[in-house]
């Protein structure tokens, strides 16, 4: 469904070239849930943005549903995948109501029955009709993230890209949102890529997990191998050990 082949992304800043992602290759099968973990600056979000077509890859290296995709995409190609972002405060337009935000994608793609579809999308993510005409500042963090999920799914995409969807939320809200994403993923048969710095979240949500360090994909592990600690590379083992908690004895 999604294939990255030798994907590299370089940012140019004041004449300096910074390689954010270097020669990364992986495949995500239809219906699969793929996870990418790494620390800040490892390039994990950059990969997601390149797949989404928000930033330019150095060379065409992304194939989605059999088609090579660059930065310029048709409306139909855009509809294929949608994204949920990290910051529930920055991902909703501050001057638009929930209703406005959910109508917009339907208007762009010329749907009819817009009012009904918006209502159904809200119900899908567990929001009530009373939330429909609220502005983002009248919603809690968890509710905002639900709106973002509703917005991503209202176009019925086949692929859902999740960029740290719960890292700004409290544990209890995180559990609710992760359960919601799992349920929607199953009922809409979505293929998904989840990016996170939290190994626990990725292990909970994904079948296979890619570990990133300094722009490179260190290794790809099955979730069972990760749970058992069957890592091949030293960095993965370090990351795994650090994620379990603080240990006074080890040096």
């Amino acid at each position, binding site marked *: 469904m999604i294939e990255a082949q030798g994907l590299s992304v370089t940012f140019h800043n004041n004449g300096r070239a910074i390689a954010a992602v270097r020669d990364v290759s992986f495949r995500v099968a239809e219906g699969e849930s793929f996870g990418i973990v790494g*620390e*800040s600056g490892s390039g994990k979000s950059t990969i997601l943005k390149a797949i989404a077509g928000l930033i330019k890859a150095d060379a065409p290296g992304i194939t989605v549903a059999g088609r090579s995709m660059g930065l310029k995409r048709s409306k139909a190609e855009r509809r294929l995948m949608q994204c949920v972002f990290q910051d529930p405060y920055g991902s909703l337009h501050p001057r638009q109501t929930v209703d406005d935000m959910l109508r917009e994608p339907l208007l762009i793609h010329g749907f009819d029955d817009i009012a009904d579809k918006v209502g159904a999308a809200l119900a899908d993510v567990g929001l009530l009709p009373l939330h429909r005409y609220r502005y983002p500042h009248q919603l809690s963090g968890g509710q905002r993230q639900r709106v973002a999920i509703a917005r991503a799914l209202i176009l019925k995409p086949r692929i859902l890209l999740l960029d740290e969807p719960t890292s700004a939320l409290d544990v*209890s809200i995180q*559990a609710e949102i992760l359960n919601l994403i*799992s349920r929607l993923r199953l009922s809409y048969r979505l293929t998904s890529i989840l990016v996170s710095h939290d190994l626990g979240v990725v292990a909970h949500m994904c079948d296979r997990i890619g570990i990133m360090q300094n722009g490179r994909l260190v290794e790809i592990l099955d*979730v069972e191998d990760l749970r058992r600690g069957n890592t091949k590379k030293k960095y993965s083992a370090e*990351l795994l050990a*650090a994620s*379990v908690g*603080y240990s006074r004895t080890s040096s």
Partner: protein
Amino acid sequence: MSTDPLLEVEDLNVSFFGQGETTLAVRNVSFTLGRERLGIVGESGSGKSTTARALLGLIPSPGVVTAKTLRFAGQNLLGLRDQDWQALRGQRISMVMQDPKYSLNPVIKVGHQIQETYLLHHQASADDARRRALAMLEAVKIRDPDLVFHLFPHQLSGGMGQRVMIAMMLITEPDLLIADEPTSALDVTVQNEVLRILDDLVTDRGMGLIFISHNLPIVSSFCDRVLVMYGGKIVEECRADALHKAKHPYTQALLRAVPRIDHPVRELSVVSRNPEWLS
């Protein structure tokens, strides 16, 4: 003398008045702290940061702090005047915040900022202060203190910035360090290094540490004792290594809501809140 608790808090309340309503941010919080690592966990809005600010006299003006007892090393903190607070803060009680980026002055070299902090509280020559600052940078495991001394805050990575902050807060050798989410902005591998530095300093210097975090696994593995806060109240107090045996339904639910690598579950359990917890 040394058996006396470092900090005694009894019935601490913090309330904010605004638009005809009174919001109780902290309700009847009582605890004592020795020379140990005390963790305070809770979700956002649970009052954990407000509690810490109250201990430093940093509650902004519409907020009102009341308590039956608020005593630090035998000194009564209730009704302290501003200048008394200033003498206490930074000197005997220090605080490390979540993000070093906002706590350091962006246009002054970090070494000079540490040096300044020392000179503010001690009668010493500039040379002396400089030596102390370098020694402190070394104490927080910075490999090349001479180099880091001359860097500006924006040239530091997150982990390095947090170490510099800790160095700055500890140069006055406080008796109590309050760390408010000191590692939340850091990567996991760096996080553990910073925790180790804090750990060693507490052990070596016999400091008291209040460690505020929303991250239960870290608190349970790092601290000696844990207070669990919910809605401004302490709902549970227990030994950190026994946190997984916590009795309060909120603590239990919170623990179950954390996705864990070693315990796969099909669905994460959700915290259902009981209004009785607040009564």
